């Protein structure tokens, strides 16, 4: 009983701490990147794509999907792989260059 109580408290603490920390960080709704920022992301994405994707499955070529589909796919992959946010942004910008 005591063990369950502790695990529940731990879980709630982790969630609350995460939400609190999260509210201090940058907003979810990121603005469209500037030209220089986009260039940086594309270059970074070109380095990440052959490694990060291939780690779990064969890397799908950028031309396979439409840009809006990559937005969805990478959002999904970011969740599955817990990919750092900036890396996910780099991957999606690279994949959208087609």
């Amino acid at each position, binding site marked *: 009983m005591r063990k*369950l109580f502790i695990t529940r408290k731990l879980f709630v603490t982790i969630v609350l701490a995460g939400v609190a920390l999260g509210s201090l960080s940058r907003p979810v709704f990121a603005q469209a990147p500037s030209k220089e920022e986009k260039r940086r992301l594309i270059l970074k994405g070109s380095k990440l794509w052959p490694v*990060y994707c291939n780690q779990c499955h064969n890397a799908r070529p950028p031309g396979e999907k439409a840009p809006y589909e990559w937005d969805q796919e990478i959002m999904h992959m970011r969740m599955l792989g817990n990919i750092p946010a900036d890396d996910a942004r780099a991957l999606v910008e690279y994949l959208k260059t087609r």
Partner: protein
Amino acid sequence: MSAERLFSTFLFAFAVAALSLAGPARAADSDGTDAVAMKQIRSEIRQMREERKRDREVIRSLEIKVQQLETKDSKVQAGTQQLQSTDQKLKETTLELQQTNARVKSLQTKVDAPIAPSQFASDFGRYLGSHTFQITGAAGFNFVYDQQSGALDGLHHATQNTFFFNFEPMFLYRPADWILFEGELEGSFGQAGTAVDLPLADFQITLNDYMMIVAGLFDQPFGDWYENQSPMWVNRFVSAPLPFGVEAVVPPSEIGLQLRGGLQWGDLGQDVDYTVWGGNGPNFSESVPGAAIGGPTAIASSLTNGKSIGARVRFYPLPLDEHLGRLELGASTYNGKWMNGHWFNSWGVDFNYFNGNLQMRGEWVQAYRQMPSNFSQDNRQGWYLQAGYFLNGLNVPGFPDKLNSYIHRLEPLVRYSGVNQHGVAIDDIHGATGVGVGGLQVGLIPDFGLSGSPALFAPHSREVALGLDYWVAPSIVWQNEFDIELPRAGGVFVSSTGASTPAGSIPNDHAFLTQFTVGF
């Protein structure tokens, strides 16, 4: 009166005067001389008159010429003016033409130029709207040949020679850049009929750069297999490794809530990520030892007394720029009450290494299930180690280029997996189900991605799987798998009342599975 006329009149008067003055003198000199002189004068006067007449004619002629020249000059002037006017108009027209040409050229350039992808993407994005929808997933066609060399007591068994088809569409719906809905249906057609299941349905909500929430029915984020390797085009083999197949050690899915995220702690590629989650908790097919862990359907309808809690941390130590490949080291735990006050506790470690053509992965899973006092403990262990190598760098000397290009698409694989558990519930073998496909498989009739070999259901099953994949495209693959089942002796089969009988020696077995899969 003109000057010439005045001059002629003056000459005539002067001559008359001169004659009147000279008359008296001549009279005085001589009458003959005068007559001659008069004649000469008259002749001269006549000559002068003729000259004057000619002069007049010349003057008239000249006047006519002057008039003609003046007329011509005025015409020339008028022509020159007209020419100047025409020239001005021509200049203006030329300027207009140049401007028109420039406009036409500009338009032509715009028409001829291909639309920039970014521009097209932007236009297409506006066309689609902000709510986007996509179907992804996979489909597979499968054939199993299993020459069952032995049987389990009292169970139906037969040599299998069967085709299957499986279709797993995944729906992604993204109403905004911070939320995504994911839902997957699984439809399978096989020897025992068709089945449809719902293995996934959840919302993914991005809170910020470091936190995401997942709410709904999801693959168990324990280790790597269920979440990342279970899609049929992602799994390098046709079948699942034993601890994630029919003898699952931890539940394959959960319904509940996750908090997860990742961050870079060092150089590019040096990351760490976390996942914590809670849900309905583990569920077993029976309360006896060796009972199978419930699949998605059982989890969704789970009526356990307590909720579950799980956590996973994964660590990536290798920097990308060192070109040492990517290594993942992970540890997971999943715990919850499965019945009354009885806990199910599990933990596992996993690794995953990828470098060029080589990929390796492995997991170790350990589970403890507290049992009522009249039963023995139900502890389980499972593991697998897998390696594969793409032959796309191999050029066999003497082989034609065409043949070498086929070889480049090959990926030989090997996997060793095993499960240890004290007992296996005999009812589960009678009505065993494949992972994610509830209710399709009956007894030892195989399921999609499962050979149905009796050896898989042994308390101490071991399997060596040899694979050869032919990659048509990054997500289109023809997979071939040859399984060598090498179950260890020992353990018990447990009836629904808890009575156990020794499993004894279970014969080795072989199976061949081939599958054509398209990920989309």
